[in-house]
């Protein structure tokens, strides 16, 4: 966060810094005539953004978690779960697990409010707050079930999209609360969520993907709308990260959690917020992915978390937290997309592509670290 008194030119260099690696990749590929001929065309470039869109969205949310020094392995599974929630809501009516997903944030909110009120009166809150939270969960599940039963058939598309976002939010919130209040390492918590969300996806659908979605959903998954959604997410996340207090505090926690705590930062709140943002990112990605294929696929996003992590790390965000940016993650996701596409465009054998991509990811991070240290 040094903004020292160096020359104005250094600021420009810094701004351009995350673009160095993709620029190198692009220049390198462009030496090949097939790539130069096909890639830099008005026809192809939009394809690239569309191909990268889901990874860009996942990486944006994930950036916040990694900035706190945590990790979220669950984004791929949560994406599948949100997609299925959307699909089931539209086609058959809300699935029962949705009531739970709705109840959980309500309970957490009630617990938090109770704790707040109690601390203000100088009491020790944990027990009462938990009780209030649990009561709220119970009430919300009951209300939710009644509501769901009342709705009967499929709900409107807009409602279904909101439900998907709600599921993402709930998963993120659960991750965040277990990490902060439960003091379980993020790797374990989100590994558990990875398994559980995938399990719930299969449970809710018996493993059958949900098709028969309304055609107007498809608009969100293609062309300029898809790209626009991805870029809106980037813009929103970037502003949140660099222009708001919450964004700065999330980063500060990653830099030095103890120092942040001692200087009065509400670490629990802001860390949890980071996981919620990651869950929301997964939900938005689920909406566009489901729209793109007109299918809520139970196998969606298998391994997607690894691509998203790679994007964040290539983008210069430190896995130990405190350093990095959403914009970097956009660049990282674009780099991976260029690599994936470039290898096909220049005609590298499909069996070798994985080897090259793996090597470049590691090299990219190495280059970044050397520059960072210098």
């Amino acid at each position, binding site marked *: 966060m040094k*903004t020292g008194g160096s020359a104005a030119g250094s*600021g*420009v260099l*810094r*701004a*351009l810094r*995350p*673009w160095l690696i993709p620029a190198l990749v692009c220049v390198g590929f462009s030496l090949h005539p*097939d790539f130069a001929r*096909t*890639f830099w*065309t*008005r*026809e*192809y*470039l*939009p*394809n690239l*953004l*569309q*191909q990268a869109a*889901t990874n860009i969205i996942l990486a944006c949310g994930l950036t916040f978690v990694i900035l706190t020094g945590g990790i979220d392995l669950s984004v791929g599974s949560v994406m599948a779960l949100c997609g299925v929630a959307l699909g089931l809501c539209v086609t058959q009516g809300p699935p029962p697990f949705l009531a739970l997903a709705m109840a959980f944030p309500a309970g957490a909110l009630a617990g938090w409010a109770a704790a707040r009120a109690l601390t203000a009166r100088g009491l020790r809150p944990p027990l009462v707050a938990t009780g209030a939270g649990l009561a709220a969960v119970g009430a919300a599940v009951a209300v939710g079930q009644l509501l769901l039963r009342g709705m009967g058939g499929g709900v409107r598309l807009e409602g279904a999209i909101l439900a998907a976002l709600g599921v993402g939010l709930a998963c993120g919130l659960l991750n965040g609360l277990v990490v902060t209040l439960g003091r379980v390492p993020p790797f374990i918590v989100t590994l558990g969520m990875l398994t559980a969300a995938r399990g719930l996806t299969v449970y809710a659908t018996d*493993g*059958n993907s949900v*098709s028969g979605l309304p055609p107007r959903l498809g608009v969100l998954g*293609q*062309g*300029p709308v898809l*790209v*626009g959604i991805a*870029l809106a997410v*980037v*813009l929103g996340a*970037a*502003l949140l990260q*660099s*222009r708001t207090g919450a964004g700065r505090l999330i980063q500060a926690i990653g830099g030095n959690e103890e120092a942040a705590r001692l200087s009065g930062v509400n670490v629990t709140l802001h860390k949890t917020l980071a996981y919620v943002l990651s869950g929301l990112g997964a939900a938005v990605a689920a909406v566009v*992915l489901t729209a*793109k*294929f*007109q*299918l809520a*696929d139970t*196998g*969606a996003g*298998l*391994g997607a978390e690894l691509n998203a992590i790679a994007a964040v790390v290539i983008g210069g965000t430190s896995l130990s937290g405190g350093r990095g*940016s959403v*914009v970097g993650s*956009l660049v990282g996701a674009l780099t991976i997309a260029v690599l*994936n*596409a470039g290898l*096909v*465009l220049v*005609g590298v*054998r*499909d*069996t070798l592509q*994985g080897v090259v991509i793996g090597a470049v990811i590691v090299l990219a991070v190495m280059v970044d670290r050397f520059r960072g240290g210098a």
Partner: protein
Amino acid sequence: MKRRELLGVALATVGLIVGCGKEEASAPSGSPAPSGTGEAPAAPAATGGALTQADLDAVAKSEKPRKLALIVKTRNNPFFDPMIKAAEAEAKALGVELEVQSPAQETDKERQFALVQDVTARGVEAILVTPADSKGIVPALKQAQEKGILVINLDNRVDPDVAKSAGLELAAYVGADNLEGGRLAGQSMAEALSSGGKVAVLEGIRGTDNAEARKRGFTEAVAGKLDIVASDTAEWDTQRAYAKFQSMLAAHPEIQGLFCANDKMAVGALKAIDEAGKGGKITVVGYDNIPDVQPHLKNGKLAATIEQHPDLMGKYGVRAAVGILNGSVERGKEFLVPLEAIRGTK
């Protein structure tokens, strides 16, 4: 510094959005790209009749150098390996170039979609594809068609309704007839249990085209000869087949025969049979002839399996592509590869 970063992103991406917008705007207004040279416009999606093996065997070596692409679901499935090898060999024999592309995972539909876009950009003359998602892949294939690329569908069918509404016209379909395969399996079972008996079925994922057709074919072939006392899905999966057949066997200890709609499920069911101490006493028929069941065919625990000849799909897919490009094969038709019942030895 932060402001500059954001500005940079905004500038860089505005350019790309503009690119998108233009592409989108020009696509519908422009007339459908001429895909070939002055031929009849109609031809519905690959149901315009059948191609015969003779039609395809007659395809001559290409006079011009041509580039084709084969995009399979994944290489991590033994089904696709013979398809790829046969297609490569046939391309060589016909004097054309074939590039193979594959997602690392069978479930990675997004990657397959991107691969279609990438080989389209690279400029091939025909794309042969086994869709991982028979509906979702359509927009990418439509893009290819608009650039004048032939789209040839192998194995798993592109959804005809979605293709039709998108204006995608398949140049050819080459695959296997699952109904016929189911019948062959049923015949094998009826022959093995010639004095009649009670049989069970482990189905594939319900609602999918191939699963339903195999079950229907089997049911037709055994009607009046054998009793189907239980039928349930194990979703193509070895583990589930193992568990499902354990409970089926508990409920119906009299079962004498079992049809599994793929060999992976047969492997699971055979394990359940062995553990129940009924090894060799129940006639099992599988489907696909994968390497994993070869030992079971040898020791007679698997009575028969159906070979779908993915190698022939690869071979005749390439021949169809070259034939259409040469002008000797008509567009919009389909070719069903011959199926074969492979008997176990005992």
